């Protein structure tokens, strides 16, 4: 038996691996949530060009995507993100609190509460809307099958849930009535996927459900990828403003020597190029004047409320609704 061959292979592979990591001068890691893949693929290319022109330095940007809760957990457990671009500020608060790798006042560091773009929650239904779904109360009707991810693991799912709750509270007058309403909606949910993209796959690829509650950008992307024939976007009159913040992870960026790069990267999201790309990928830009007017036309006008307005901030919403024993645990029995 020859033992030298495997040994050579090991050395060869190790050499290969180290050579690939040494190619670019600096590498930035952006840890993000599910639906931003396409946006950052585009944006990273533009940023690399911009940085090369500005400084002459070649850089690489690496992406990691997954459910927002899972990604947050990974950063807390040591995934070395130079920047995080997540679904909600509560997740970044958790990183600040539990891992202490960025200051707790992170949200005040960048313009517009560190929100280069926002989104909202809409419905995606099958062609010609056979169940005639127009508003949140239609989701609670008997015989309507609703697809939404698990709010314990998915940021988008928490927005979906809170939007339904706020509708219930406003239209039926009390917390108890809202709880009953949301319970009826979740009785109609046959499967809770762990992330937004998983739910989209359930709705489109597996053909389950009459209505998918999802990010506006995710709904537009699904139409674009699947062709407009089979589905329609239904915009409810009132929905929640999905505030999707970004921040530098100071301790990691300092350690990797990427602090200036990370800061420039996030600032570039606010530049005309970044804003135009956000709108192109169906996010609502914070400075619409930089976006292509054609792209902006796609966003319907609707009444939006924030988590702060509706629920007194994420910390309270999380504690009341999603922590163990909260309202979600009380209303949802699989």
């Amino acid at each position, binding site marked *: 038996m020859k033992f030298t061959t495997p040994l050579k292979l*090991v050395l060869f*592979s*190790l050499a290969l*691996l180290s050579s*690939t990591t040494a190619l670019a001068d600096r590498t930035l890691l952006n840890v993000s949530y599910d639906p931003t893949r396409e946006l950052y693929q585009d944006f990273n290319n533009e940023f690399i060009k911009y940085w090369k022109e500005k400084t002459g330095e070649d850089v690489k940007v*690496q992406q990691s*995507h997954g459910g927002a809760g899972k990604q947050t957990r990974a950063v807390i*457990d*040591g995934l070395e993100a130079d920047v995080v671009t997540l679904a909600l500020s509560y997740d970044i608060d958790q990183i600040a609190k539990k891992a202490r790798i960025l200051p707790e006042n992170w949200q005040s560091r960048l313009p517009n509460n560190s929100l280069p773009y926002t989104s909202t929650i809409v419905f995606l239904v099958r062609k010609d809307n056979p169940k005639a779904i127009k508003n949140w109360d239609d989701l609670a009707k008997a015989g309507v099958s609703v697809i939404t991810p698990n709010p314990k693991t998915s940021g988008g799912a928490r927005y979906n849930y809170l939007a339904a709750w706020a509708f219930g509270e406003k239209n039926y007058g009390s917390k108890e009535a809202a709880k009953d309403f949301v319970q009826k909606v979740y009785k109609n949910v046959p499967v809770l996927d762990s992330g937004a993209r998983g739910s989209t796959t359930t709705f489109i690829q597996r053909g389950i459900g009459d209505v998918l509650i999802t990010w506006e950008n995710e709904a537009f*992307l699904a139409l674009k990828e699947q062709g407009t024939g089979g589905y329609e976007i239904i915009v409810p009159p009132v929905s929640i403003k999905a505030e999707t913040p970004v921040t530098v992870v100071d301790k990691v960026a300092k350690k990797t020597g990427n602090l200036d790069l990370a800061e420039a990267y996030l600032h570039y999201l606010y530049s005309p190029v970044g804003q135009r790309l956000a709108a192109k990928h169906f996010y609502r830009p914070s400075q619409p004047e930089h976006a292509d007017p054609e792209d902006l036309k796609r966003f319907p006008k609707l009444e939006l409320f924030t988590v702060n307005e509706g629920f007194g901030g994420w910390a309270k919403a999380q504690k009341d609704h999603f922590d163990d024993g909260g309202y979600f645990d009380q209303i949802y029995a699989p």
Partner: protein
Amino acid sequence: MNAISATSFLASKKLTLSDPDWVRYALIVATLAVIGLFLLLPLLTVLIEAFAKGWDAYSASLSHPDALAAMRLTLLVAVVTVPLTTVFGVSAAWAIARFDFRGKSLLITLIDLPFSVSPVIAGLIYVLIFGAQGWLGSWASEHDIKILFAVPGIILATLFVTFPFVARELIPLMQEIGHEEEEAALSLGASGWQTFFKITLPNVKWGLLNGVLLCNARAMGEFGAVSVVSGHIRGLTNTLPLHIEVSYNEYDFVGSFAGASILAALAVVTLVFKTVLEWKQKQEAAKQAVEVH
């Protein structure tokens, strides 16, 4: 009942020593249907989806830098884990088959542990140990050692799920063969290593190769444990199975199924190797039988 009527009774009723034809055919058809439905049809779907946009799209998605990086990482993981599990498997089997000691059955149970533990748990234990909030996390980051969300973590998780394969294959084999031949070699003055390489290894080589093959297949295909410790950084810590999931989630069905076709091809190659191994093994056994007589 007299003798004559008994024989005529037997003659009138046919003795049935095997199942009737219809049972046999029904069983064969059922087996084929199940294999076709659950194995061949999905395999065919993989190929149809992979080539849905033609050969160019297929080869383009396989030569994408992220796909190449995923394949490279998968190979690296296999190249590191398979020799380690082999060494471990041989030593464990040697210890268990040749020596009697206290806690031997406990050791056998422990070797089997990774088979009975969900791969997700296998990943999570490394998060708990090496994560930034884990036992050794702060020590690792102080010394600038990256384990979790990097290649070492992926290798560790793969090692955990693959390490019983070789040992499990060898233990019963070595117990069955016994140690008369080795004792003979030792009494004739062979050293321990000589005995091992000249007697033990040739005796167990088919089982060993089989174990290595299965271990390799699992190392390349592992998803759960690796998914937990990977961090999913594209082009860096995505193995081929993770790359398939990522592509699928990005609506890149050609890319996803092209990756799947590579893993499916690996499975077919493994099966062919396994068949060849068994065939050779039988031939050798037959040859030895002829020589003995």
